[in-house]
């Protein structure tokens, strides 16, 4: 079974290529998905589906949109990202490692007693993680606090928060939604990973959230709904959000839970289980290159 790490860290040359648009973004997304599957299998537990569904969103933010310095994670003017759905940690860790926040080899220690990469993001030891998450529903409030501090200090950074669709069932999310609009936090952009599934089944069956866009609009947000696996659409929406003045913006990203692995896509069973070694082999084969299946 192949357990090789995907392509190494993004180097300077590749950065230049990225700007010149020759960069193989699909390849990067595949590499990150391979990281996720590999480290989850190695750990023997963790959240597969909801990690695979946020890959393009994280690429757009960390590789394209956000101003941040992996060699200086505390840079006061950095754009901030909060993974409110903390169980998406494997995807975040892969992206942080590939951006140089820590070594790629460290990914292998996910969920290990010997390593620092906790099952859910832990801010006190993991560079690039602003706040610990895992208990759902709290990240948007934290993002609000950071956006409020940015306004107080007249800093120009922007704040991004990524929430799950099931997570919207938490009451605190709507408390926070009111706060963002009340304090006119136009330096804040939230994204929803609208993969239509939660643990016990489809979101619409467990506790429906529709009409979700109308809800956010009614709470005073600028709202857009896009394809959350299209980098171009995500980038367009992030640029649109930056132009929005006087109110926060919400990008509802239509995604596929388990994206990229045919037998995991739209399967509620892959929410909180790691692939078996056999499943990993099949999945890596699907992700081994050229064109998205």
């Amino acid at each position, binding site marked *: 079974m192949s357990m090789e790490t995907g392509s190494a860290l993004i180097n300077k040359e590749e950065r230049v290529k990225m700007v010149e648009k020759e960069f193989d973004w699909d390849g990067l997304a595949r590499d990150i998905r391979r990281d996720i599957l590999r480290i989850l299998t190695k750990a023997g537990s963790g959240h597969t589906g909801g990690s695979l569904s946020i890959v393009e969103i994280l690429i757009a933010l960390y590789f394209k949109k956000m101003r941040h310095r992996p060699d200086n994670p505390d840079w*006061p003017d950095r754009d*901030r990202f909060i993974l409110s759905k903390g169980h998406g940690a494997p995807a975040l860790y892969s992206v942080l490692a590939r951006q140089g926040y820590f070594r790629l080899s460290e990914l292998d220690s996910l969920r290990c007693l010997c390593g620092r990469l906790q099952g859910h993001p*832990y*801010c*006190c030891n993991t560079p690039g993680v*602003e*706040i*610990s*998450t*895992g*208990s759902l*529903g*709290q*990240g948007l*409030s*934290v*993002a*609000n*606090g*950071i*956006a*409020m*501090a*940015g306004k*107080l*200090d007249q800093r120009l950074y922007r704040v991004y928060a990524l929430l799950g669709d099931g997570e919207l069932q938490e*009451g*605190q999310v709507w*408390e*926070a939604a*009111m*706060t963002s609009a*009340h*304090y006119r936090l136009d330096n804040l952009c939230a994204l929803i990973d609208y993969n239509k599934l939660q643990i016990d089944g489809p979101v619409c069956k467990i506790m429906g959230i529709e009409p979700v866009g109308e809800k956010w609009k009614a709470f005073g947000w600028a709202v857009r709904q896009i394809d959350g696996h299209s980098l171009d659409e995500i980038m367009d929406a992030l640029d649109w959000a930056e132009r929005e003045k006087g109110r926060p913006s919400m990008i509802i990203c239509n995604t596929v839970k388990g994206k990229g692995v045919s037998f995991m896509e739209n399967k509620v069973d892959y929410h909180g289980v790691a692939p078996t070694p056999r499943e990993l082999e099949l999945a890596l084969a699907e992700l081994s290159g050229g064109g998205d299946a």
Partner: protein
Amino acid sequence: MAMLGTRDVYGDTLVKLGAKNKDIVVLDADLSVSTRTAKFAEAYPERFFNMGIAEQDMISTAAGLATCGKIPFVSTFAVFLAGRAWDQVRQCVCYSEKNVKLVSTHAGITVGEDSATHQANEDIALMRILPNMTVICPADGIETARVIETVAMHKGPVYVRLARCKFPVIYDENYRFRIGKSDMIRDGSQATIIAIGIMVSHAIEAAKRLSEEGIDVRVINMSTVKPIDVKAIHKAALETGAIVTAEEHSIIGGLGSAVSEVIGESNIPCPIKRIGVKDCFGVSGKPEELLEKYCLGVKDIIEAAKDAIKRRSRPCPSA
């Protein structure tokens, strides 16, 4: 006896600190008039955030502000701060090690007429169990000022417990407070009363009356419940041989539990009697009436001291 509201002192101290330290921001959840953070709001409106009746959002927002170097003071009633938003305090503040100061008012049974829904007799237990949390309950207005000044300089999560009613003033302006250091208000040889909050002044009165009966007791103000002053507890057990704890909080999980844990793990045999709310909810009433009903009065402390002295395995040092 002069009386001072700990929450009044809190509001005034915040305003003073806010003038010097521009990183201080204050959050409240529609109780700013009662918690006295309204004074700060009036002085520095741009650094005050009323979060509406949304305590969970308030705590996590404060943590976000703290990630940017702000020093958030977060206030509401104790029952809502420690209870309603406990998971947020746990994950965003304690586990994330954010420099957030939680200052609750209206703690304990002395909330009075508003009844059990508003009487937080569990908050110390809820906050004490959280890793990285410091828990402080000042004994009077003077100490409250020192505590607020101190925690503003201290890095890390702190929970400060204040009350609705006014407390008798027991300290003068020379009083110095240090986190984790208890204060022996009166020395004694036959038993030690370890108290917090309003119970400290009751303990002082009880000690006075006991001395009139020829019983000599020590009084310790254990304002920092966590990290608790282990040395002072060991010393009290060794030198006086009997301990009474007194708190306006459940006898489960608060000061009485903390002191019992220290003695239980020591090799000093020492009977302990806990004064506190005995695992029940309160009712409406005037604060003084409730203190009496729930056996938190001076006479209850006196009885407890006598009981503890009776149960000691060694003779009184002075007997």
